[in-house]
């Protein structure tokens, strides 16, 4: 089982320019217009979310574990 340090962020492996470029490209893909004044807040929020995602993803799970949402007919 690999456990990453809790404070390590996937986003920290990108340069600031790379992350800003990712945000700009994702905005285009999502057809989302982001005002320049929003960018610092979006960047911090994305870094935080990716830190949490990294903590989760660094935990090895068996292939057989189903995602939690269920479908009830």
């Amino acid at each position, binding site marked *: 089982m690999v456990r990453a340090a*809790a404070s390590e962020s996937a986003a920290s492996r990108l340069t600031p320019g790379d992350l800003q470029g*990712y*945000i700009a490209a*994702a*905005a285009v893909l*999502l*057809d*989302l*217009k*982001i*005002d320049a004044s*929003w960018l610092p*807040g*979006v960047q*911090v*929020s*994305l870094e*935080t*979310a*990716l*830190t*949490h*995602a990294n*903590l*989760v*993803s660094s*935990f090895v*799970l068996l292939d057989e*574990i*189903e*995602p*939690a*949402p269920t479908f*009830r007919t």
Partner: protein
Amino acid sequence: MEWSSASEIAANVTSGEWQVASVIEQALSRIESINPGLNAFSEVTADRARARALSLDAQIREGKRLGPLAGVPFAAKNLFDLRGIATLAGSRINRDHEPASRDAALVERLENAGAVLVGALHMSEYAYDFTGDNAHYGPTRNPHDRSRITGGSSGGSGAAVAGGLVPLALGSDTNGSIRVPSSFCGVFGLKPTYGRLSRARTFPFVSSLDHLGPFARNAKDLAVSFDAICAPDSEDPVCSLRPAEPTAPQLCKGIEGLRIASAGGYFRKGASAEANEALERVARALGVKWEVELPEADRARSAAYVITATEGASLHLDRLKTHGAEFDPAVRDRLIAGAMMPASLGLQAQKFRRWFHERLLELFKHVDLILAPATPFTAPPIGQQTFLFNGVETPMRPNIGMYTQPISLIGFPVVVVPVPLHPLPIGVQIIAPPWREDLALRAACVAEELGVALAPRPFLSS
């Protein structure tokens, strides 16, 4: 009458001692007087309440028996549909929505039990906040100290019950939004099992994590109101088909034979002296002598964060495109970030959710109830940005829910009991296995009978 419990009101109305009209008039008068200082209500449905009160009094004169909440005034977080009112969900954007054509399922069920709706309650925008602040409508204020937050996102619900404006309120809890305001405002709150209560006709946030539930000032009111609203609902595809299992008849059964432990490890890190004191008082009262460790609780909290970010973003993506500038900036930026998360990360969080669910089901083979703090600290001042976490200055807002998020991730039921420390109360979570709200409520009742859990009465003037 102003601090009467729901059960007392219902008993006095049923016996004919009190008329519903006078109960409601007193509630409306108190709301008019006190609410400006608390900012709990976003709308007071006075005409509707008075009309209903007259109708109920007429039914009583005709000899009809009303339900277990006869004449009880209640209010609902403004993500619940209320007939004739646009469902704001704490936003400015939703002001343009058509008024709801029908009440939310749980509002209908409370009214079927004889209760009387008196209004809608403020909340954090789209439920994406733990403070109870709102960029459009201002902060809801804590009745115990109006310079402090109520907690969120069901801030209005916590304040309305704690401030004696209503004895019952409805709220929602995705990551802690019933349990945090219960803790900060010093009231009892119930986040039931995921899928237990119908979410029909409420504005959503995170489908995987949204729960609805009641606030009250004692365990009996919590049980009676929960029983009144609990039943399958074919209009909610997530609502369980499991039949309702009444909790009130067995509320005073005690806790003999129940195996109760405190959560250690993660749930001890960063807890303030007050959080620890409250937990210890409840643990002593319930005869707790051992600790259990919830495995990977920090990852569970992070999984809840990721699921919230991604599902919340998906819900609001169209709104972000058309009304981006009208959001609370703090909500908007997190939603945009969530929309940009790689999909595989969201699914990984859902897989971890399954894993954590299975681990906790195993844990609950050896224990019946687990205690944990509800919040790391008592209610902070409005506007405070950081707190000391293990001696390190840490952002406050995202960490208020650190003890609540791992539990709502997997939908286990929780009762929060308030411990009346001075100068501010703080809550303790009583966590039960799925579908065993009855056990958590029984423990809450014992803690209350022993005087350890109590909703303290604030001094409030108009």
